[in-house]
């Protein structure tokens, strides 16, 4: 899954249509695509760390769980607590770019959950909200590119995958 293509799709879905503003279904799908652009950015980066058969790398990608990723993202977004505290002990302060990636992931997952699962009409994202999340995903991908080769970023990818990594990281 190419994250840039997902963002291109989101751009298309949020564009004004000949009949007026985008349909609510399109805006919901745009928010979902923005989340998955960042999700796939991170899981693809994890797979790229593994020098293995492509089938094995695909297997690795499928082990990532949204709930675990959310919990770790929240800790890294705060820059403290849980496995983020371990990261600070090992690598020093968490780089601002990585905290931004974590924050964006947390925001996007929450927005995507509402967009995909909450049927209430008053939860329908506005076009501006959808565009905000698309821009957020793009910015997070840029931030990730700036930090991805640092050991703390590799630790982040591992923490997103392994539950209770802090128990084993001492």
């Amino acid at each position, binding site marked *: 899954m190419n994250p840039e293509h997902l963002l291109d799709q989101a751009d298309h879905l949020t564009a004004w249509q000949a009949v007026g*503003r985008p*349909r*609510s*279904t399109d*805006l919901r799908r745009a928010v979902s695509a923005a989340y998955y652009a960042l999700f796939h950015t991170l899981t693809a980066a994890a797979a790229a760390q593994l020098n293995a058969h492509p089938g094995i790398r695909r297997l690795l990608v499928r082990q990532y769980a949204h*709930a675990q990723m*959310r*919990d770790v993202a*929240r800790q890294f*977004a705060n820059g403290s*607590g849980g496995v983020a505290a371990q990261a600070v002990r090992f690598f020093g302060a968490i780089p601002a770019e990585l905290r*931004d990636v974590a*924050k*964006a992931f*947390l*925001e996007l997952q*929450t*927005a995507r*959950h*509402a967009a995909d*699962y909450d*049927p209430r*009409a*008053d939860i*329908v*994202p*506005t*076009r*501006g*909200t959808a*565009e*905000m999340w*698309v*821009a*957020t995903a793009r*910015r997070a991908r840029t931030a990730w590119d700036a930090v991805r080769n640092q050991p703390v970023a590799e630790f982040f990818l591992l923490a997103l995958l392994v539950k209770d990594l802090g128990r084993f990281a001492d």
Partner: protein
Amino acid sequence: MTATTTTNEAALRAAVADLPKLSWLAADFVAADCRFGHDHAGDPAVWVRLVAKDDAVARPGFFDGLFAVRDRIREHLRNHGLGEEFVHFTLWSETDLRNPPGEDE
């Protein structure tokens, strides 16, 4: 660890409502409100709705700058009694206020 939730919701609501009066928001935003709740994982959260001027949302680069704006608002609200709730945002325009979004017919 137990999250520290905001103890004075009324004060925080007032701080959110006053956001558009801040010098660094006044040029682009006309209103703000919030609701308290829990996110899909059950953690306490606050959703802040920002209402932007129509010409602001049409301006190139406006959305790129919102990440920093959201961070600054979080910091501002922490200084006004926000607890451990994560602050989420929605963005409306003046046009959205006049013609609110809803599910398609």
